[in-house]
């Protein structure tokens, strides 16, 4: 399945990097060639060249045109990122030191794990309960800050099945690097089962007692999320998830 955001980000990246590599080689090769070709031994007398107006105009105009092209493609990719499809499903995400909570439109809540159905555009409404965070899914090339007092948004289309890392990208204090999560893209029918299973206490694992308001003495989430290889522990606390997604996926996460 084609993903408009991933495509545009990667294409703009390739475009700019190609032009950049060309200019880097041009400058570096010319510099090294001149230094060797016109070294004192081979060229004992320097020519007195102080400038060349037409050359200077050329190397001002060409880069100007090129950067405007880069700007243009960057902008058009950005427009894709900002124009949320009308049929997008809205999920509210709240960042707090140091975890993510997801709220679905039917009142279902999930902690750390973001479940979405394959193919359906997802609009994330991003909020923060304390300091600045940034909601980032590298695999889908999207990121937007969570700023207290505002609601920011981003959207993406889950066009790949499986689990993907969610990270906090804006520094937020001691356990910033443990403010991780998982995006889990499911078959739409599995997702419906999961979403409509009434919230059980276990769904919001290790819930509020651990987090709210208190900044722990040492790495708070060490017991739950140390690195992603330990995310499996989160999965284990919720047998429901295991039932609906299937043991296979859990085993894969364990690896």
């Amino acid at each position: 399945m084609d993903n408009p955001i991933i495509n545009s980000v990667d294409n703009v990246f390739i475009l700019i990097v190609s032009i950049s590599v060309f200019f880097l080689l041009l400058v570096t090769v010319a510099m090294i060639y001149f230094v060797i070709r016109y070294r004192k031994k081979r060229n004992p007398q320097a020519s007195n060249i102080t400038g060349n107006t037409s050359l200077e105009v050329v190397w001002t105009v060409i880069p100007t045109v090129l950067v405007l092209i880069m700007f243009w493609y960057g902008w058009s990719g950005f427009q894709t990122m900002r124009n949320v499809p009308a049929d997008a499903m809205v999920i509210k995400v709240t960042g707090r030191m140091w975890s993510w909570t997801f709220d679905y439109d039917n009142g279902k809540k999930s902690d750390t794990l973001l479940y979405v159905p394959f193919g359906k555009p997802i609009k994330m409404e991003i909020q923060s309960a304390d300091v600045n965070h940034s909601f980032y899914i590298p695999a889908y090339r999207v990121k937007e800050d969570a700023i207290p007092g505002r609601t920011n948004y981003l959207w993406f289309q889950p066009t790949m099945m499986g689990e993907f890392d969610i990270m906090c990208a804006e520094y937020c204090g001691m356990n910033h690097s443990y403010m991780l999560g998982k995006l889990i893209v499911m078959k739409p029918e599995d997702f419906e089962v999961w979403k409509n299973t009434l919230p059980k206490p276990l769904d919001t694992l290790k819930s509020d007692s651990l987090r709210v308001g208190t900044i722990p003495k040492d790495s708070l989430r060490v017991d739950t999320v140390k690195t992603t290889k330990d995310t499996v522990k989160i999965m284990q606390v919720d047998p429901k998830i295991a039932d609906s997604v299937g043991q296979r996926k859990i085993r894969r996460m364990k690896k």
Partner: protein
Amino acid sequence: MANGTAAAHVNDVDFYHYEGKHKGIMSWLLTTDHKRIGIMYLAAIVVFFLAAMMLGVLMRIEALTPGQTIMKPQTYNSIFTFHGVIMIFLFIIPAVPAVFGNFFLPIQLGAKDVSFPRLNLFSWYLYMAGGLIALLSLFTGGGAADTGWTFYVPYSIRSSANVSLSVFGAFVLGFSSIVTGLNFITTIHRMRAPGMSWFRMPLFAWALYATSWIQVLATPVIGITLFLIVLERAFGIGVFDPALGGDPLLYQHMFWIYSHPAVYIMILPAMGVVSEIIPTFAKKDIFGYKQIALSSLAIALIGYLVWGHHMFTSGMSDTSRVVFSLLTFLVAIPTGVKVFNWVATLYKGSIEIKVPLLFVMAFIFIFSIGGLTGLVQGALATDIHLTDTYFIVGHFHYVMFGGMGTIFFAALHYWFPKMFGKTYNEKVAIISATLFVIGFNMFYFTMFILGYLGMPRRYYDYLPQYQGLHVFSSIGAFIMVTGIVLMFGNLLRGLIKGEKATANPWGGTTLEWRIASPPPLENFDEIPVVTGGPYVHDRETYIMNPIKVIHKEEEAVH
């Protein structure tokens, strides 16, 4: 000193040996000689740089394995904060202007000192005070700040660490920067030797001129912003704190309104040094003098208007994001133009390959990578993915450290014989430069890849898939640091045991090469007269000691 004989007297010895009112250490601490002040800045800046570099080494050791390697998260967070604070406020911003600007600007203009020598000393004291206050914050109150050098609210308001004191340190440093800027602007306007029109000024002076204007105009903004943080923490005034009706984005705007132009405060003086070194070793005039001079001003001007590109994911309006992206691309043009001019200057030169030129070549390669990766981040679509990842960390180390840092080293090797009257071992210098360049690129280029793969910055711990690249990057860091230590060791050895340097070892054409190494107290016996551009190699463009020349001519006539 209008009196010729008195001037000759004070200039009998170099400025190190001149016996003034004060002796020993006081002859330094109470000096108003721009050269001594430059040397005092150099001593302090090198110490701060090496300290911050060691913090960087600790971070790279921690990054060798996921999970804890040598320290706890809180320690790591304080270390990257202070690595940033020291490197930005105490090294990169003041390094070239305060050391080489102070030492060489008056000489290059044909002046005996800066306009306000006492103010100049005062700004050194402000610099030291700011640095010591920041140091003090490490050991007092709630301990070392853990906010990152950006001090983003609301975290910087909430953090229990000693943020106020380190912020106040940066506030004091701002004044030092403003005072130095004012001094340089006045010096450039008022103290140029007869015949030195604006377009006969060395390009280093042009670069300092553009830099000084940014320092004077932009630094007050950061002063106010940082002060508001202190007030917010102390009294909860509610300007930035959303819980009190403030706006965290306002802070980000105000912070970057200074801190983006500050990027040009960091890089413009370095560009000026490049424009000095290339003509000297190519033995020819610079290519496109006016274009280079004016592009400094263009960079300073447009550089004011691009701060928002630090905030593309902050939730700022989409319209602002587009406008800031466009402006960001525009500032790339004068920067690119400078690089083309430098390379073109080498064309048909008669090039002597010496250590300073090698550093400059390394700079052009590294800085081009830094600038070009900036384009990736100027483009909106790619920046959304890459901002706040290691891609950014790689980019700004290429631009700031690879740009300004490499040129700081180049300038040290270029002006070392002039400043100290000694020479260093060239072979060791080449080896250290090579280690530096190889290590640098292994270290920071890897970060571009890490960033594209989604590794966020300021992470104490990381997911296991990133380990291989982190280890490779750390190995690069260790090689680079070896090169830097060797380089400083070599310079130190030169300082103690080096042979005596001649007045003009490289064949430079600007005024500092026309006086003794090290320079006499008042630089010139008589103010010289300038009759041509700064980089003319094939004819004489200065009349040194014009009064004596006239006397001689008169005698010849009689």
